[in-house]
């Protein structure tokens, strides 16, 4: 017996007060998993699902931004990047940023997923989808989210270089919180 038949069986036994059983949804729809609008994910980012998550008939523009692992950084050949996150805080902070963007740019919907783990060159590490009636604010909202994410969300990356070395990336160049020679 399939799960749907099992449910139908239970509902029928519940008596005349049981609500009518909704028709089964077509398999093509039922098999599409919905995704949260904000998430730290450990597997590949489902870009199609992210775009669906901001689907809105009132939107005339949906901007999709993908951040991907680049093969060089500051002149060094990169073979891959380890991403680490303080997941609970990162999701909380991404939600705050998405809310800010929504009120600033009046987006109809916004979604942002960031991946953690070891990613090879070319693989998406972050995806942002922004939907709006018009294209200009959709672009602005996606831009706002990525810029703020890079500044505020507790996610870190350790670059692996082709020469076999690896290093945590510090966009502050050590200026913010480090005195010379403190951290190896």
């Amino acid at each position, binding site marked *: 017996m399939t799960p749907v038949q099992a449910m139908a069986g239970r509902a029928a036994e519940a008596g005349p007060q049981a609500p009518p059983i909704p028709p089964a949804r077509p398999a093509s729809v039922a098999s599409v998993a919905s995704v949260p609008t904000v998430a730290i994910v450990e597997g590949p980012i489902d870009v199609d699902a992210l775009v669906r998550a901001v689907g809105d008939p009132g939107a005339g523009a949906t901007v999709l931004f993908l951040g991907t692992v680049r093969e060089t950084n500051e002149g060094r050949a990169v073979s891959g990047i380890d991403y680490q996150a303080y997941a609970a*805080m990162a999701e909380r902070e991404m939600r705050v940023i998405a809310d800010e963007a929504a009120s600033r740019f009046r987006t109809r919907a916004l979604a942002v997923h960031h991946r953690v783990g070891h990613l090879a060159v070319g693989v998406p590490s972050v995806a942002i989808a922004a939907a709006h009636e018009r294209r200009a604010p959709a672009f602005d909202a996606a831009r706002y989210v990525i810029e703020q994410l*890079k500044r505020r969300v507790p996610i870190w*990356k350790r670059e692996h270089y082709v020469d076999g070395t690896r290093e945590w990336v510090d966009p502050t160049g050590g200026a913010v*919180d480090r005195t010379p020679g403190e951290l190896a």
Partner: protein
Amino acid sequence: MTLTVLLFASYADALGRRELDVQVGPGATVGDLVARIRAGGHDRLPPRPLVAVNQEYAAYDRVLATGDEVALIPPVAGG
């Protein structure tokens, strides 16, 4: 009170661990906690790392309470 401090990325590497139990007195601030960690032999940490309390960035004069979730936040580099 004893607070468990979460460590990430370069700070976790510098201290060789992902968590640290730190004993502080009542009324201790975030600044007191950082000073205590550094005085406890962890001077490989920078003098004023970013700190989060209960998953929000916190000022150094923030007073800590039992059960607070504290984390040291290395310079972030998402994207």
